[in-house]
């Protein structure tokens, strides 16, 4: 197990009220695996991600990365946030944004090559000198992905990375992440509210309940690789898995009504 989430819970206290966002989350991620975490809106997915990554201390429980307890974001971990416009640094070009995290990486010999490779992998080689505001939303998110890639992490956490782009760009970016993960051999944890996406991208799907969230089900996704936006989604197995995830979320009595779940 590369990443182990052990009994994570997170509560917020404001005044005398205590809100339990995350109840008790327990699962593991094997090396090279792609795990999706999906659940109803408001189930604390982002909070969970922040606790796992070390950005936020959990109320109880802990995360182990290669057996070490995570207290601060470890150097082998990179995150792609949902809001790319606030994650990228607007005063730097695409190239400099991607290169910045590599400042002190003595283990990387040829930083320029790594940056070029990352940009080429996401298809932004021609836009290296552009500023983020000159790019579309999809391209900005690709820059954020390139930055994560150049960092050469063992684990990539993504927090609803495609929620802020349109549907077609979303499909492109999904396939991009799958290609890149295949090429660079990265372990990925994807947090999403989109059930189709969760099943399409993953080797395993972790379904969360509504807050205080716990793990409802963990499903194995036995779909052929490489995935294809049309062909994979036409397979009966895809439909079955999708339905199972949906049913699992619906089984939760506190889950919001069908209209509000993607």
């Amino acid at each position, binding site marked *: 197990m590369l990443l182990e989430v052990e009994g994570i819970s997170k509560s917020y206290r404001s005044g005398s009220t205590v809100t339990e966002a995350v109840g008790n989350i327990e699962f593991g991620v094997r090396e090279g695996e792609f795990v999706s975490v999906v659940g109803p809106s408001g189930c604390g997915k982002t909070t969970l991600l922040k606790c796992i990554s070390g*950005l936020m201390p959990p109320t109880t429980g802990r995360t182990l990365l290669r057996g070490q307890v995570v207290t601060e*974001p470890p150097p082998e971990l990179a995150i792609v946030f949902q809001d790319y416009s*606030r994650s990228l640094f607007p005063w730097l070009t695409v190239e400099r944004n991607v290169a*910045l995290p590599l*400042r002190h990486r003595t283990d990387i010999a040829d930083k320029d090559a790594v940056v070029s490779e990352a940009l080429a992998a996401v298809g932004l080689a021609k836009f290296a000198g552009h500023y983020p*505001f000159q790019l579309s939303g999809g391209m900005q998110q690709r820059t954020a992905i390139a930055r994560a890639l150049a960092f050469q992490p063992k684990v990539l956490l993504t927090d609803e990375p495609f929620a802020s782009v349109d549907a077609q760009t979303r499909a492109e970016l999904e396939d991009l992440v799958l290609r890149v993960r295949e090429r660079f051999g990265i372990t990925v944890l994807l947090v999403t509210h989109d059930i189709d996406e969760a099943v399409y991208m993953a080797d395993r799907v972790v379904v969360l309940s509504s807050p205080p969230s716990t793990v409802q089900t963990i499903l194995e996704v036995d779909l052929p690789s490489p995935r294809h936006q049309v062909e994979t989604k036409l397979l009966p197995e895809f439909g079955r898995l999708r339905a199972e995830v949906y049913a699992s979320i619906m089984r939760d009595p506190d889950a919001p009504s069908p209209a509000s779940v993607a």
Partner: protein
Amino acid sequence: MDRRVTRIAVEAGASAAIIALIWIYTASVDSYAVSPMPDVLDSFRRAWLFDGVTEHIVPSLVRVALGFGVAVLVGVTAGFLLGLSRTASAIAQPVVSFLRAIPAAALLPPAIVILGVGNSMKVFVIAFVACWPVLLNTSDGVRELDRTMLDTARVYGIGGLERLRLVILPAVAPRIFAGMRVSLAISVLLLVTSEMVASTNGIGHFVFLAQSQFAVADMWAGVILLGLIGFVLNVAFEAVERRVLRWHLASRQSS
């Protein structure tokens, strides 16, 4: 290209028209307070081109440069300290609120008593009053930094002084410049005030002296020079701002 040329032509034309109107007005009015334009221009030439440069203009510019420079340095440094530390901010809050509320003019007598009537008094007064807009803008800017941006810095191992230099400073730069623009105007204002109250040279002193001696044309010449200097300083400031905040101004335009 066309629109720009039209705009410049309109601006130049309007300015010329206004100057012409002033010329005609001052020539027609028969009051000691209103000098005819030719007299004012003559005084301007005699006073400032080029004897008055070393005697008055240079000292004034040096004072305002030093005062503004100190104001920015102190404002940015203190602004960062207060913005980054909740405790520091809580402790400093009442002190800052009180000090910045002191009217500038009220500072002059104590400054004269403590520092005399030399350059240090003027630089101190300018710096003391002009630092607040920079300080407050900086500390507000730091406190309002985006959570996601700071999380990103943490994830990618950018911390401490490096984070301050590479992430926080550029992110707060637009706010700092906004504060600096106000500080610049305040600096010029306090330069003139302090020179009028206690000085033996400087443009402010010149204007005050001219008025007290009823050398009205000279007085107007000094006022016009002050206006020009303020204008030039602003243009220079904007040019620097445009260069440093290229990314910011361009992104604002495109959104």
